[in-house]
């Protein structure tokens, strides 16, 4: 029996807006065991990002409780790495500067810091780009830096909020493959948000389908397909159809 890393109990989140109080998260109960790659899948704007932000501590819950590794989540912390939709790299720091930032904040001595950062830069395939600024990198390469930066603080959990959403189709496939390679090598608990069904089935151990706002869990699917997965395998396509069919349709 694997340890439960993330536990969400009766989590609700509302925002106060000009139109009054808007419920974004209905009431979510969710546990994520160690080293699972969980995909939160649902229509656009349905509150998936809010759920991830709540788990990462970037937003506070309105009701309920989130724990990560037994500790209650109240603010962001280095035990929870986040890979953002729009990379959120520090533009004035080089690739090395970005990746080692977390270790520097922790006070890790320079030599060890450099070695560890280099390990993750190599892992994501950016060897030779250590001294390049993000503005000189392609979209896919920036996301690699984002992944290396989050990995480098060696967090218990990694949250990935549609990290490949802005990439072109070719780069997206490549990055999905890359993420699988990285994850096989450095197993972590990952919560991955996407609205792309193909990506979801390709990556997930388990897919949690979310409803429209206020979001709740609609269904869960365990994906036991062998890896590396094949996008045109009949079983892959069947799952893809089955899950697509139950998702709320929105514009």
């Amino acid at each position, binding site marked *: 029996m694997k340890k439960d890393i993330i536990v969400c109990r009766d989590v609700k989140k509302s925002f106060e807006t000009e139109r009054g109080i808007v419920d974004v998260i209905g009431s979510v109960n969710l546990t994520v065991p160690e080293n699972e790659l969980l995909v939160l899948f649902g229509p656009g704007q349905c509150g998936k990002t809010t759920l991830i932000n709540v788990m990462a501590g*970037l937003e506070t819950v309105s009701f309920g409780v989130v724990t990560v590794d037994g500790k209650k989540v109240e603010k962001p912390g280095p035990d929870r790495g986040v890979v953002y939709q729009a990379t959120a790299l520090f533009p004035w720091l080089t690739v090395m500067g970005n990746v080692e930032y977390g270790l520097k904040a922790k006070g890790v001595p320079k030599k060890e810091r450099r070695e560890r950062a280099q390990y993750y830069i190599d892992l994501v395939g950016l060897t030779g780009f250590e001294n390049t600024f993000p503005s000189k990198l392609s979209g896919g390469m920036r996301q690699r830096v984002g992944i290396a930066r989050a990995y480098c603080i060696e967090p218990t959990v990694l949250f990935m909020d549609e990290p490949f959403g802005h990439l072109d189709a070719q780069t997206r496939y490549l990055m999905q493959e890359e993420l699988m390679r990285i994850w096989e090598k450095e197993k972590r608990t990952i919560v991955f948000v996407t609205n792309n069904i193909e990506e979801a089935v390709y990556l997930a151990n388990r897919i949690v389908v979310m409803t429209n706002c206020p979001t709740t869990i609609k269904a869960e699917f365990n994906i036991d397909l062998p890896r590396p997965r094949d996008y045109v395998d009949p079983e892959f396509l069947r799952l893809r159809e089955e899950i697509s069919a139950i998702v709320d349709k929105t514009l």
Partner: protein
Amino acid sequence: MGRFKDAAKYEKTIFAVISITTFLLIWYLVTKDTELGKVLAGPVTVFGKFFKSFTEPLGTHVIPGHILWSLSRVMVGYVVASILGIILGVTMGWSRLVEAMFRPLFEIIRPIPPIAWIPLAILWFGLGELTKYFLIALATFSNVTMNAYSGAKSVDPVLIGAARMLGASDSRIFMTIVLPASVPHIFAGLQIALGSAWATVVAAEMVRSSEGVGWVIITGQDTNNSVQILVGIIAVGIIGYVLAIMMRQIEANLCSWSERGK
């Protein structure tokens, strides 16, 4: 790519040369043996005098000496006020409390042009150097503060969230995120401020001084010497231009990471 860039650069240089030459030519023609020529000296006379004044002193100094005097005044006021302005501006952008305390005060003082302070400055600090430093500092301070403030205000909150997620403390976020993110804004402010500090030193020297480019201009007026006035004006123009280019170069080196700095 490189060839087109070069071509564009040559084109710019050629047009610059053409426009300056045309201007000098018109100046020359309208002042040569005309009525206007009696009140406005021609370019040959003015530039002749300008270059001659490198060796023949105007008053107590040669023209580079006057320029250095003015520049040294600017540097004192500018450096002190820039440091204070950056600190206050960035702190105002970072802390709501500091913002609430200083912003209203600042908004009232900001629109007052530095030269409006001249009479008060003379009453407070007399006719010496201190008055000039004070005026230059005023001219610098508001520009730098305002830009540093808007820079610190406009830091992407996602970047602050990312730093927090990576375990950075508040003071580390301030030093490694808010400050560098504000650098392009701070530089824009420093650039404008240097221009207005340079303009202010001339004004301050015209009020009372015994050296500096402002003195060259005002003494030209007192002695009815339009050539000397124009020599002073040319010196002000050239130095102002050189300062602006220098600042842009420093910015390009410091902000090589930003899209703008390229």
